[in-house]
């Protein structure tokens, strides 16, 4: 909060009309109301993403041919990437096919929603609102806990998750709460904060460079104008960095989900 306040105070004293972007920049007004319930832009974007993904997968798998066309090849590339590098390498070749549908839809959903952040006119990554990320993390949490319970039984899974093998004696008193904390409680929190934090911080940076550059350019001072151009150039650089980060976060969320599932499925060593 001090970040926001200090920046906006400095900006306003220097050139009057400039408001530094902060968490308030992410609170968009509702687009329309359905019986007192305000529907905002990220909600519409989520629905749009579901429609887009459905259309893409149906179109890509509709006319399947032995020699794939362009669309089918793209669909197969994404599917193969999720199935082979994410699911099979982390879950193990025995059970991985059960989790591929979940992981594939998770990956596509996060990828499309992240890339909204740099598509012109949409320009809002829906996962920069934390409320949309928490359910995803909770679903992943239920999936990997449920998998562990299905494989080992309730107490078997608790033992599997909290007791490192090959440890005995009083050190368990220290290790069991720590492992419980890190394996069961903290994982959904870090999943949420990682995706949300990256999207939020990246979008904030883009807003800052764009609005700050515009304010500096229109300030009338020649030196400020030069810095404004520099700020726009940096903003373009940050956009490319964001393209990388957006893909990376979708990849990492899916990777971590599949690693947790694989760990819950693993046998005692």
């Amino acid at each position, binding site marked *: *909060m*001090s*970040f*926001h306040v*200090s920046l906006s105070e400095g900006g306003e004293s220097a050139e009057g009309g400039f408001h530094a972007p*902060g*968490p308030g920049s992410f609170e968009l007004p509702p687009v329309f109301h359905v019986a007192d319930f305000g529907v905002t832009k990220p909600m519409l974007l989520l629905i749009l993403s579901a429609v887009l993904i459905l259309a893409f997968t149906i179109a890509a798998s509709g006319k399947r041919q032995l020699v794939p066309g362009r669309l089918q090849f793209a669909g197969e590339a994404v599917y193969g990437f999720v199935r082979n*590098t994410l699911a099979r*390498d982390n879950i193990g070749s025995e059970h991985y096919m059960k989790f591929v549908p979940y992981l594939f839809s998770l990956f596509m959903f996060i990828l499309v929603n992240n890339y909204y952040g740099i598509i012109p006119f949409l320009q809002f990554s829906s996962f920069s609102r934390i409320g949309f990320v928490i359910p995803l993390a909770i679903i992943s949490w239920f999936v990997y806990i449920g998998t562990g319970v299905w494989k080992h039984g309730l107490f078997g899974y608790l033992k599997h998750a909290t007791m490192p093998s090959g440890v005995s004696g009083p050190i368990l008193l220290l290790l069991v709460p720590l492992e419980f904390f890190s394996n069961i409680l903290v994982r959904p929190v*870090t999943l949420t*904060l*990682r995706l*949300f*934090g*990256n999207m*939020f*911080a990246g979008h904030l940076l883009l807003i800052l460079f764009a609005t700050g550059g515009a304010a500096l350019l229109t300030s009338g001072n020649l030196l400020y104008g030069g810095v404004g151009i520099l700020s726009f150039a940096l903003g373009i650089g940050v956009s490319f960095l964001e393209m990388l980060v957006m893909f*990376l976060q979708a*990849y*990492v969320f899916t*990777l*971590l989900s599949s*690693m947790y599932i694989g760990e819950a499925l693993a046998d005692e060593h």
Partner: protein
Amino acid sequence: MIGLGLSAIGPGVGIGLIFAAFISGVARQPEAQSRLQSIAILGFVLAEALFIITVALAFVLPI
């Protein structure tokens, strides 16, 4: 603000170390790149989580 800068030091050093190890590993054994890559990205993400949590807390906590 200062705390945010301070907290960026740790993950910065950590991410640097991770990718240094990744590069030298690939330089020694180029065919292991695909395996090392996923491990490196995983380590990068875990190291970065600390800073991201700080960014989130910086906005959430009232001072």
